[in-house]
């Protein structure tokens, strides 16, 4: 028998088998199914059509209101909030997280719901960030309803690829710059298509849990299906603090595991990247777009809303003011991140600089807040840059890491954030 990858091993365990074959169609039960609220009205109609009474495993359901953080005037979301809350109560679903709790991605790891070796069905590819704790995210879109109803669903065992990381990120360069580079290299190809990417290499020990989640959360733009990081001491310390005695199993790939592609990145060779609209693989060094005027900047979304993103924004914004024509929205990814940012004085720095802090949730990433007019330009840590993502189809969306976004908000145009960071460092 050939060696098994991490994805194969986790799926085999879930099936009660020794091994699974790449490409094999299997029907499997996940440890959790995690679901957001936006499609709830449709799910509810389907539950009624099918005539579902009690779901078999309410303990496995994790329901999170993260896309619509407020029951705002003019929206229908307040009705969704009510009906989802009521349904969870009726079903005995303990893991219901109401508006303002944060994103599924963060809620799952912060509460120890995603742990090493677990199989998670979710509604989005970006929830691959759970791979930072060694859990395998299988995105099944709106079929989360099928998993809730049947406690199982089909999937094709994904092939695996391996990306080795060496070196250290240079001053002013972030994990976001790495993933934008990877997406630039693979996003317009089918080389990582459908793969579970296993990250490996000496550099990972130097990456924080936030860095690892940032990389995995945008990995799907490369064509990959999902991804995992090795569960090292850093990850284990994070998991142990949150597992509260619940079981987990660290899964490592077999030596002879088969990888359809192997690639390597030297982190020390990376520079701040900006992805141009409207393609996700349109990443260029920041210098190529330097001087581009912006009207709005946003820091948030599962691609960049963790505590280190907040710290990075604060490193730029401390003692500075936004350019007069710029609006900056900052959205901490969860209550935990929000509280930590408050304790560290980061929220005060944001407010003093002229930024607006929003309630934890997806907020500006999908245009729920911060809509753009025709010809306005946004720079954001968010996931997407297609036309119309944030309002007008005639607006442009540039994507970048938190340093570059905050620096652009101060300068009123895209600049290399290392200039401001170096000034800050000299000052200190």
């Amino acid at each position, binding site marked *: 028998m050939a060696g098994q990858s991490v994805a194969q091993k986790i799926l085999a365990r879930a099936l009660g088998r020794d091994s699974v074959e790449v490409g094999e169609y299997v029907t499997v039960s996940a440890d959790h199914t995690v679901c957001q609220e936006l499609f709830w009205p449709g799910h509810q109609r389907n539950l009624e059509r099918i005539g579902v009474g009690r779901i078999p495993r309410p303990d496995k359901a994790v329901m999170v209101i993260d896309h619509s953080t407020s029951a705002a005037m003019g929206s229908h979301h307040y009705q969704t909030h009510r009906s989802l809350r009521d349904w969870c109560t009726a079903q005995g679903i303990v893991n219901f997280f109401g508006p303002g709790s944060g994103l599924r991605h963060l809620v799952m790891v912060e509460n120890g719901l995603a742990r090493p070796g677990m199989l998670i069905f979710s509604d989005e590819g970006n929830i691959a960030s759970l791979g930072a704790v060694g859990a395998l995210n299988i995105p099944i879109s*709106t079929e989360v309803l099928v998993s809730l109803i049947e406690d199982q669903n*089909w999937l094709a065992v994904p092939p695996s690829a391996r990306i080795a990381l060496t070196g250290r990120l240079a001053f002013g360069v972030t994990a976001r710059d790495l993933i934008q580079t990877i997406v630039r290299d693979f996003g317009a190809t089918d080389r990582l298509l459908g793969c579970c990417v296993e990250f490996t290499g000496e550099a990972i020990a130097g990456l924080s849990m936030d860095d690892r989640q940032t990389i995995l959360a945008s990995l799907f733009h490369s064509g990959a299906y999902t991804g995992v990081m090795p569960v090292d001491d850093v990850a284990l310390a994070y998991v142990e603090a949150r597992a509260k005695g619940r079981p987990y199993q660290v899964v490592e790939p077999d030596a002879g595991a088969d990888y359809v592609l192997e690639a390597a990145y030297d982190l020390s060779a990376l520079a701040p990247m900006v992805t141009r609209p409207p393609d996700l693989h349109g990443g260029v060094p920041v210098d190529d777009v330097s001087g581009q005027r912006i009207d709005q900047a946003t820091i948030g979304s599962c691609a960049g809303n963790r505590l280190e993103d907040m710290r990075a924004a604060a490193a730029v914004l401390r003692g500075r003011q936004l350019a007069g024509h710029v609006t900056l929205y900052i959205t901490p990814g969860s209550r935990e991140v929000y509280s930590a940012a408050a304790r560290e004085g980061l929220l005060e720095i944001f407010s003093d600089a002229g930024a607006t802090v929003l309630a934890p949730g997806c907020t500006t990433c999908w245009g729920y807040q911060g809509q753009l007019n025709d010809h306005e330009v946004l720079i954001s840590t968010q996931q997407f840059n297609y036309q119309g993502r944030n309002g007008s189809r005639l607006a442009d969306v540039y994507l970048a890491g938190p340093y570059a976004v905050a620096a652009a908000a101060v300068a009123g145009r895209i600049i290399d954030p290392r200039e401001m960071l170096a000034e800050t460092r000299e000052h200190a």
Partner: protein
Amino acid sequence: MGGTALRGRVWKFGDNISGDDGIIEFSIIREGFGKAFDEGALRAMCFRRLRPEFPTEVRPGDIVVGGRNFGHHNHVEVSVAMKASGITVVVVESCESGIIRRALNVGLPVMICPGITDAVADGEVLEADPATGAIRTASGQHLQSRPFSPRMVEIWQAGGSIPLLQREFAERRARESQEMDAR
């Protein structure tokens, strides 16, 4: 070919076609995100960016053949648009797993078949069987795709996951009530 084979006229497309920003124009319909699908609007925009005549000339039973990385970045509306246009099966060189899921969930099979681009011309008739994975071109060439699992065939033939569950739950309820009566 088996009894589950689909036969239809081919609409052929190239490599790296975006789902949201190619097959449909997601940014136009995103206001309806999370609401019931507007199938009329989706039909009217389906493939029009790449083939302006598609929405008016597509016929029920037609087949889409795609190249490599077909339909990358696709919300479920992409699958709904193709299904609502009358497409019965999509055969591609390669595609991400998500579109196979989303399409099957609404009853549209997507089959991966390397070599299909060279084997078939636009407008030709193609036969494809998701249950067996067998594909046959007008010239009689056979290609083989991975067969769907039995459960996937059930989902496809029921017209999607929800209709299948609807039927199975109704059968379950009927069985339970018979058992109650028998007691």
